């Protein structure tokens, strides 16, 4: 069997059903084998390899299966870089197969040669250049194993053209063991015991849920823990999706643009159980004052996250799912009525809020979308103010249902990620929110929605600004709006029209409800271009590096 066919058969062995791929000279052979032997494999051809990579990422985050990408050498490979870096920062499992020039030409600056393993080294969990056809199948096996276990992440496999053409027997290993890679699933029993002890003694305990809860499919265990103990919960941007039965327990998301009550809870708790978080600077603010009254228990599968940004009192290394299961097995007796009442009152007195006016407020649109879209909708955002408003105002109640570029903050993520989610979830609704700036970074992907019969609902919150940066300029640079105006935005309705996608323009606040309802109920893809109040800011805001209680409620 030739190398290209080995790749195709290996993907089938891994149970892959979808490949996001874009052809070129260095992968033409793989495409040929896909043509001849690709039964059961759906090929999605984006309009740009960056779009394809984000789409694979959106597919992976929403389904829990690894996203597979195949691109050609040189520019094909370099176009995936932003997508790979985005996936790496948010621990999303991708398998990116790149064609490479023939191994005899490597190092000669051959046509469309680029050092893909060199370029992707710092943004992959592992990467491989296959130099021997006999290593090909086992390298693919290894890559899937590494990408999907432990803390997930992208893996790149660079396959030279001659390796694709060489012949070898196809032996796909059933299992693989790597001496130097053995992720630990179960937490240390002693640490779990100490956790129980700390929890039962705490007067003001709080759970902080992070992306790891989604990634380890531990939302069920998390909700069970919250329901059993009644402990209040806050989450990070990536941890969206936890859903205690008692709404009073839920305090929203924390950090720079967290809710007042979420940040209050962090600063006043005496014990924080942080699950699958990495304490990023956007969450912590000032590490010296973060959770200054609390002992911190840190549950994470990656030992390198322990004590990295925040020194913790009790680390447990292992998967969120397995550790929460263990903790749920113990009957915890805690009485925290006073603490809960304190938080309920604080939340009542300090709700999220925004003003009303003649112009549409973006927050209102998000509330309407939450009202009309079903609970199992996959909600996707781009980056900027739109992203944070969705995180604040759209209550996500299902796991793996909030897709956003958290760590890298990649504008242009929204549309292709939504497309990937639609590919992987044909029975669910997918709604995307994007700003006028970010949407234009990958709007070419509108071109494949009709082609593959996908259903994607798109909302462009057009404030005619690179809003998030404009907000910083308002706060820190005396409104010198340098490089942030978007005056010559296209007519997005016409744009959708040329791609044969139904579209509506909305400006009148009184029509908002009807239009969003129509969007939610539409049986086909639809884009709503909304002119929103250009001066609206994301609030509250903790300026970078400040303590979570040094918060601005107006600019």
């Amino acid at each position, binding site marked *: 069997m030739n190398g290209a066919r080995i790749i195709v058969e290996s993907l089938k062995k891994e149970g892959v059903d979808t490949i996001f791929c874009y052809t070129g000279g260095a992968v033409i052979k793989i495409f040929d084998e896909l043509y001849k032997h690709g039964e059961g494999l759906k090929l999605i051809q984006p309009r740009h390899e960056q779009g394809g990579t984000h789409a694979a990422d959106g597919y992976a985050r929403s389904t829990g299966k690894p996203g597979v990408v195949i691109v050609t050498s040189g520019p094909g490979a370099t176009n995936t870089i932003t997508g790979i870096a985005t996936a790496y920062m948010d621990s999303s499992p991708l398998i990116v197969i790149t064609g490479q020039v023939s191994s005899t030409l490597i190092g000669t600056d051959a046509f469309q040669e680029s050092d893909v*393993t*060199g370029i992707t*080294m*710092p943004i992959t*969990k*592992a990467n491989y*250049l296959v*130099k021997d056809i006999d290593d090909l199948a086992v390298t693919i096996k290894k890559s899937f194993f*590494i990408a999907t276990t432990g803390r997930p992440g992208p893996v790149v496999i660079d396959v030279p053209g001659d390796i694709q053409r060489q012949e070898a027997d196809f032996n796909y290993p059933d299992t693989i063991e*790597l*001496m*130097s*890679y053995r992720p630990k699933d179960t937490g240390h029993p002693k640490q779990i015991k100490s956790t129980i002890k700390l929890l039962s003694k705490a007067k003001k305990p709080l759970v902080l849920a992070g992306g790891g809860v989604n990634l380890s499919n531990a939302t069920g265990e998390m909700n069970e823990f919250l329901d059993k103990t009644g402990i209040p919960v806050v989450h990070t941007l990536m941890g969206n999706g936890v859903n205690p039965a008692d709404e009073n327990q839920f305090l929203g998301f924390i950090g720079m643009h967290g809710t007042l009550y979420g940040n209050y809870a962090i600063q006043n708790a005496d014990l924080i159980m942080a699950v699958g978080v990495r304490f990023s600077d956007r969450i912590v603010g000032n590490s010296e004052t973060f959770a200054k009254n609390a002992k911190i228990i840190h549950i994470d599968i*990656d*030992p*390198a996250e*322990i*004590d*990295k940004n925040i020194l913790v009192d009790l680390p447990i290394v292992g998967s969120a799912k397995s550790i929460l299961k263990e903790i749920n097995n113990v009957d915890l007796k805690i009485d925290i009525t006073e603490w809960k009442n304190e938080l309920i009152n604080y939340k009542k007195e300090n709700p999220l809020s925004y003003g009303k006016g003649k112009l549409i407020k973006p927050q209102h649109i998000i509330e309407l979308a939450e009202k009309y879209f079903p609970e199992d909708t996959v909600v996707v955002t781009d980056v900027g103010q739109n992203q944070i408003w969705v995180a604040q105002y759209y209550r996500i109640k299902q796991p793996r249902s909030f897709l956003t570029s958290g760590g890298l903050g990649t504008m242009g993520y929204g549309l292709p990620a939504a497309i990937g989610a639609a590919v992987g979830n044909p029975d669910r609704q997918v709604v995307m929110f994007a700003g006028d700036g970010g949407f234009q970074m990958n709007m070419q992907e509108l071109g494949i929605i009709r082609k593959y019969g996908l259903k994607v609902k798109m909302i462009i919150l057009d404030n005619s600004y690179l809003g998030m940066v404009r907000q910083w300029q308002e706060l820190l640079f005396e409104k010198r709006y340098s490089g942030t105006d978007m005056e010559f935005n296209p007519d997005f309705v016409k744009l959708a029209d040329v791609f044969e996608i139904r579209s509506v323009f909305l400006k009148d606040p009184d029509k908002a409800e009807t239009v969003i309802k129509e969007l939610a109920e539409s049986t086909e893809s639809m884009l709503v271009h909304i002119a929103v109040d250009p001066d609206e800011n994301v609030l509250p805001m903790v300026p970078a590096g400040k303590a979570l209680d040094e918060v601005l409620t107006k600019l």
Partner: protein
Amino acid sequence: MKTDRILTDHIVSVLVHNNPGVLSKITSLVTRRGFNIDGISAGPTRQNDMFRLTIVVKGDDKSIEQIQKQLYKIIDVVKVAPIIKSRMVGREICLVKIKASLSDRHEVLQIINVFKANVVDVGGNGLIVEITGDSDKIDSFLALLESHQIVDVARTGIVAMNRWDRPYK
């Protein structure tokens, strides 16, 4: 307020699978996390496909711990062990090319003798000397030779191990 970090030399011994690119993965990771590599040496071990690296980096204790954890995340890294200063056996080899006329040689040879260094090459205009020892010894050796004309110095960088436990307390 900026808290001052106390930076000291730390030595980490790293056992790796000798797969393509592993050396650059390690050096790039250390650099990326904000450390300067002061010395690095690599060589095969008894197991066929394994290499041992000895890396010297400057950093505070906390960040060194972080570096070790990050190194473990490289799939080819099998073991990362800090070398503990008080228990370290460390050796370096240094070659020194010295310009020395016949009349100067006597003094140079005396220094060489005191340090138990070896002359490994003799030419009309000078010598090449090889010295093995811990880094301090090599530093002092070079300092003493300063008054002579050193043409070139090549050092291997340190290789190190932790000592056996003592049989008594």
